[in-house]
């Protein structure tokens, strides 16, 4: 009887954990199997639940002295701008597990967009405009990709939704806001990170 209760309790616990997990596991990036992040020997307690620990983990490889060729840093505005000082860390834009399908039926690249609700579609939780869909299927014309569905395509698909990853949050920038106001022609479809480098906090 005791054993039965124990098994039942364990089953309820495991089910609960699976249901409550925000992201389903499985890394799309072939360079990152589970153990790449989840088998960090002696990692700090609650290692992969705290944002700052996740940020550190990413930067161990993608930071200055890390082994990855893809260098990155968080998104900040170091000097005063239209916005108050902010820091958007890795998981603000990236899903640590999967390239997610987007609301237009395609699939995002570079782990852009997170699962934030039951639809499982790629979204970003923006400070200014709540949860927004994001579409990122191309790295832009500088990288030889199409301009459509790149960082900021100026609503090239004509659906009146500014869902490029560089557009979804912006409401006060001069260019590429997430609404029709402001300019939407600045370097449209090009690879924003050529000038607004990921490694320099996206500051040009």
């Amino acid at each position: 009887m005791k054993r039965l209760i124990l098994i039942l309790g364990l089953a309820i616990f495991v089910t609960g954990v699976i249901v409550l997990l925000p992201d389903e596991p499985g890394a799309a990036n072939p360079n990152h199997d589970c153990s790449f992040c989840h088998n960090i020997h002696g990692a700090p307690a609650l290692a992969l639940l705290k944002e700052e620990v996740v940020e550190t983990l990413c930067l161990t490889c993608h930071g200055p002295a890390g082994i990855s060729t893809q260098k990155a840093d968080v998104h900040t505005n170091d000097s005063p701008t239209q916005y108050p000082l902010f820091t958007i860390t890795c998981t603000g834009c990236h899903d640590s597990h999967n390239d997610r399908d987007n609301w237009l039926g395609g699939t995002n690249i570079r782990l852009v967009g997170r699962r934030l609700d039951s639809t499982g579609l790629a979204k970003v939780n923006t400070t200014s405009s709540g949860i927004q869909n994001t579409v990122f299927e191309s790295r832009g014309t500088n990288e030889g990709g199409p301009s459509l569905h790149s960082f900021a395509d100026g609503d090239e698909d004509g659906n009146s939704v500014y869902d490029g990853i560089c557009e979804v949050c912006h409401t006060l920038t001069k260019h590429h806001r997430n609404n029709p106001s402001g300019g939407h022609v600045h370097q449209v479809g090009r690879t924003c990170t050529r000038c607004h480098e990921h490694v320099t906090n996206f500051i040009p």
Partner: protein
Amino acid sequence: MKTRNALLLLICAAFVTYGIFLLLGQGAVTEAVKGSDGPGAAKSKKRPPLTHPVRISQDLDGNLFVSDYSQRFIYTLDGSDFRIKKAFEVSGRPLGVAWGKGRLFVGNETTRSVEVFNTSGKMQYNLDGEVLKPTDIAFDGERGLVFVVDGYGKSVKVFDAKGPFLYVIPKEGVPQEGLVNPTGIALDPGRGEVVVSDFGDTIARIPAAIKVYDYDGIFRFKISGAVQGDFLFSRPQGLAVGPAGNVFMVDSMLGKVLVFDRTSGLGLKVLGSFGTEPGQLKLPLDVVVAPATGDVFVTNSRNDRVEAFRGGGLP
């Protein structure tokens, strides 16, 4: 009377707690150092604050030389009061830095080369040849050799300090333990050893390790990151060889300096812990140990400062 006794007990408890706290701090007094302009420092409008310290080196007078990847500067800090004494801009992103007899060897990620400056920041010459990613540098003043970790080249390149390229570690054509993803480097000139930290390869199930070669590039031994319970590591970066020959290594993920016995490879002690408070480390990337005092200095990259563990390098 009761109140007096209680007060006495409280003071006593506080004292004991403080003592335990100090002991748990591995006997080292920690000090968080931002690196600031002191009263005597020359003011420069162009000089940005230290924000992303990467590598660190020390001269014989106790000055610390710190590369800042984000600001693209090399800072000279006074090792005792951490006043910024000098700073100069690098044309590109600096990584490895090593002091050597009045010169500074700086690994420039942008130009893929090692540039040699005087300590005032005047460019002198380049070491010959390309280094794909000059992630860390060590200098042997007696032999006049510069050892440069080429992160993307998966090797250590050895140069004559005057410029010419000499050879590669591990020695080519010899079947032996290679380097997978090397990051940091330190020298033990007395033993003629080159100590290299290696991320390994998670996908290929090659664990992180500290690998030791002789100066000719022949493998001697390694300390695996996947063996010792309290001293497991997976993201090793900068290294230093302490006064007693112990190996100091920062793990950038754990936020700790792990100290290993050189002879047995066993873990001896730990400095720091993950976090942002004084004495805590977030993405530490390099370490130096002052030979005379045993002071340990760590580039606390994500906390935008250098951390000092006074006396932490003593046995």
